[in-house]
């Protein structure tokens, strides 16, 4: 990894690209929540405090349907349960005593986490911080734009905005697989588990099921990537 790939600057640079995807998703979330009857200001506040698209969509969906607040919070909490193993993986790379580490752990979001992971499994904490610090305001601003402009789902669909977020996940996945080609089988297994899981399970549970594919490494013979 070159010097330009590491640290705060790399994280901030990375965050700009990720922030564009984040803004696009936040735009659709803001519009979705307001259409579901939530006040725009409350929606923006949610994005500022929660910073998680999957959980926020789950909360609004559940509380708009037959379920109440408890169902909504439970659904959202399940959607974000993946942050537990992510924070376990990151723990050793953070600095300071228990309070500082707990605070630094708040910068964990999907794309920043994946991008900050080094080949040896440790994390570039400054890159993590930089990437998240750009995405957080992008998430809030995108939500505000969606909540107050309320673009219709048809408009979002017509201009292809719904492809931006999965597109960025795909870019990150391709980058990870180029680094570790031996993980292609695990990614494929995760995709199958996720596809089957989301057919019957809530999105959060399906994500946990997909992530469990990483457990294949517990029984697999250790080996390096092909040259």
């Amino acid at each position, binding site marked *: 990894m070159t010097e330009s790939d590491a640290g705060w600057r790399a994280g901030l640079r990375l965050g700009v690209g990720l922030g564009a995807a984040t803004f696009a998703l936040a735009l659709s979330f803001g519009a979705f929540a307001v259409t579901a009857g939530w006040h725009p200001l409350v929606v923006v506040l949610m994005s500022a405090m929660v910073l998680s698209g999957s959980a926020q969509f789950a909360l609004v969906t559940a509380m708009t349907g037959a379920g109440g607040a408890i169902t909504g919070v439970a659904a959202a909490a399940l959607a974000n349960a993946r942050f537990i193993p992510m924070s376990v993986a*990151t723990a050793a790379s953070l600095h300071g005593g228990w309070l500082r580490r707990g605070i630094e752990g708040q910068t964990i979001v999907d794309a920043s986490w994946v991008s900050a992971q080094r080949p040896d499994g440790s994390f570039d904490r400054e890159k993590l911080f930089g990437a998240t610090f750009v995405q957080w305001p992008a998430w809030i601003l995108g939500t505000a734009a969606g909540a107050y402009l309320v673009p219709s789902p048809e408009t979002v669909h017509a201009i292809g905005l719904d492809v931006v977020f*999965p597109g960025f996940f795909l870019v990150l996945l391709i980058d990870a697989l180029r680094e570790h080609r031996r993980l292609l089988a695990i990614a494929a297994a995760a995709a199958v588990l996720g596809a089957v899981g989301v057919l019957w399970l809530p999105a959060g549970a399906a994500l946990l099921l997909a992530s469990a594919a990483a457990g294949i490494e517990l029984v697999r013979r250790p080996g390096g990537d092909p040259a």
Partner: protein
Amino acid sequence: MTASLTVQLLAIAALAVINIFYKGLAPAVLGDREFSPRVTAVLIAFGPALLAGLLVVEVLGAGWRDIDATVLPGLAAVAALRWRGVNPLLCIVAGVALTVAARSLV
């Protein structure tokens, strides 16, 4: 029927607190503890597994209700271009352009 403002704010606050625990408890408790090589291998694999799962769940949606074949050419272009090392933002722009084109044909 939408929940009252108070209930919405309480739900947001509860979720925010849950997130704080999710993200902060392990770093606070584990400190700089190192893991065995096998556990480290699992943690390295967790990223691609999570990304693949996020992709599939995002594209298919709960109960596969969100399936939209018009996103496939765009996502295929993103994957192919990125594998060749093209700039991520250009990959996304190409993906969006192909998706819009596919939708104009449908």
